[in-house]
């Protein structure tokens, strides 16, 4: 459908105003709001994410596409109330204690929202206790932690320990990422997974909540 295609292309190209206009026009034309999300926004972000993974798109492209998608979602979201549209799940994300890097974490958040998740962003420099509180409060399916420094990644096992202490470890899947993180570190600390880029992190989250 033309309206869906227009919106998809606008998000892929990172054109915020075009995306807003396309979303408004599509809603006015009677396109189901849920379809706009699942058939235009989500595939658009998936295609940008794949290009990023292949090295064909880079951080600036991801950021402008995510901004365009966010702008379109602002218009679509109120119309989703009362429809059968459900996000895939809820994810809590944050950069660990002592660490301020957030570009990578924000890219992951964008790809997860782009995949249809609801994401609660705790920001940067997040203490283990704050992650645990957020898990208690929001009951997410996934907790995603990011660290960019070899010195700060050590608060990840601390957070997992704190989750166990609070009796919450079994209730949430924990995934981790960031430049110094490796698969073996992830296994060593008992996380549920690690991915090296935002697109595959979002795909992993989907798998962990049982969706493909």
């Amino acid at each position, binding site marked *: 459908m033309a309206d869906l295609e227009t919106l998809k292309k606008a998000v892929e190209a990172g054109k915020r105003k075009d995306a807003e206009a396309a979303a408004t026009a599509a809603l006015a034309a009677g396109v189901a709001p849920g379809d706009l999300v699942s058939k235009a926004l989500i595939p658009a972000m998936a295609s940008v994410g794949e290009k990023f993974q292949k090295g064909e798109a*880079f951080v*600036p492209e991801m950021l402008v596409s995510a901004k365009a998608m966010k702008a379109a979602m602002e218009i679509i979201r109120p119309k989703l109330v009362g429809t059968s549209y459900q996000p895939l799940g809820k994810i809590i994300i944050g950069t660990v204690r002592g660490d301020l890097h957030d570009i990578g974490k924000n890219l992951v958040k964008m790809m997860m929202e782009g995949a249809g998740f609801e994401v609660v962003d705790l920001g940067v420099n997040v203490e283990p206790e704050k992650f645990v509180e957020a898990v208690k409060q929001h009951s997410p399916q996934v907790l995603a932690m990011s660290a960019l420094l070899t010195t700060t990644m050590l608060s990840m096992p601390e957070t997992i320990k704190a989750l166990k202490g609070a009796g919450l470890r079994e209730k949430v899947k924990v995934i981790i990422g960031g430049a110094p993180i490796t698969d073996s570190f992830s296994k060593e600390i008992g996380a549920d997974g690690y991915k090296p880029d935002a697109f595959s992190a979002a795909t992993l989250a989907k798998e962990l909540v049982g969706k493909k």
Partner: protein
Amino acid sequence: MSGGDIRVTLQPFGTVFHMPAGHSLADHLIVHGVEFPCGGRGRCRGCRVRVLEGSLQETPADSAQLKSGELRAGWRLACQARPESDVTIELRQWTALILADDTEFPFIPGEGLGIAVDVGTTTLVAQILDLSSARILGTETALNPQARFGADVMSRIGASADSASAGRMRTVVRDAIAGMVTKLCSRVQAKSRVVRASIVGNTAMHHFFLGFPLEPLAAYPFTPKHLEGVDLTGSELGWTGPAASASARFLPNLGGFVGSDILGVILATGLHRAAAGTAAGGADLGTNGEIIFTSRGAITVASTAAGPAFEGARISQGMRAAPGAIDRVVIEEGKMVAHVIGGMEAGGICGSGLVDAVACGLEAGLIEPSGLLPAGKLPVRGEVALTRQDIREVQLAKGAIAAGIVILMREMGIVEADLAAFHLAGAFGNSLDIGNSRRIGLLSFPADKVKPAGNAALLGAKMTLFMPDGGRKACEDIISRVRHVSLETSPDFQDLFAEKMAFPEGG
């Protein structure tokens, strides 16, 4: 000696080497620590040498840069020289005053010898000087052995979490420097004592060298507890013979990760003495990408943690500027032509070559402004090519520096038109082609405002050897006027960083 080889003698200390006749003298001088501020392009006077025996042809660049009296006296630019027969030359950098031509400072001749050390994250440099004449008598360089614990500062901090590891970090760097000092003393057959030494390095290097705990630098807010300079004797540092009784001083830090090396840069470039009503800036484009701006007497500094891409690390075939490295690339008749240090097969590409190659790729339309490399590979010369990921690494590094420059200038309320000069320090800053650095969006200042500053950190350290109080007062004055800015906490940084990753459109 094969047919066609000539013999070159370097004064003042009589080093002799052989090279093929007609080859570039510059390539052979790089390994002896000679600096080429404009990157060997014949656009400055920094590499000039004086012929003592034999001859070097006068080139157009010589005539352009040197006065007729100098030419008659035998001065030539080393970067242009291609000796055809045996020659003995005296290196200007090691005979004249240790300063750039126009800098003044209260030079008080002393007795004995002095040592200056630049403890770089990647490279250690040490020089020994005659304090009565300011002549440099010898230079030693070495890779910082801490590198085996990590190429970047954060990895080394992470690797030194326990006291045994931290002790190891301290020992390996002190041992390396003690070894360099021994070599310098024996090279000059030191008959007098090494009286004093000045040591500079970034805050992490300072902490490792002096044994201060690294925890405060390991996480936000990255505020070091120890900014102070520290005095030690040569023997405490493991120095022997004529250097054992030296009074050594590791100069103080400026704030955050910005250390005494940048203090040295400020002293050497005279940024702290910028004329009233003018603004000036500088950058040390090593691993940590420090930036400095001064305006109305205030000085602001920041480090961008740009990463070691410009020093050859994280680039698939990256290497340091050494024989075998592609250090310059131009387009001739529509094709990329690369120069290799030492004139041999290309084994890799160093920082200046990387910037050139990306600029040429952009000009040739092989790299898009977004950084996309449709062909997947950009062949430069022989087996050396850039990959898609290499281009992305360049985007990250130059985006961080470019964003840092914008933020600092905003902090200080400076616009480009205000800037009298922008000094480029560090070995990479040295050989950078300004036009190409503009082409890729690393710098946006006009070429006539960008001044190559060589190893300004080391020069600043040397200057303190000649100040009556070892430079304490000068350093304190600068420190009182310096404000350290933490770029990570700036709210604009992320968007600006992403914006600056793209390459400028051609035109």
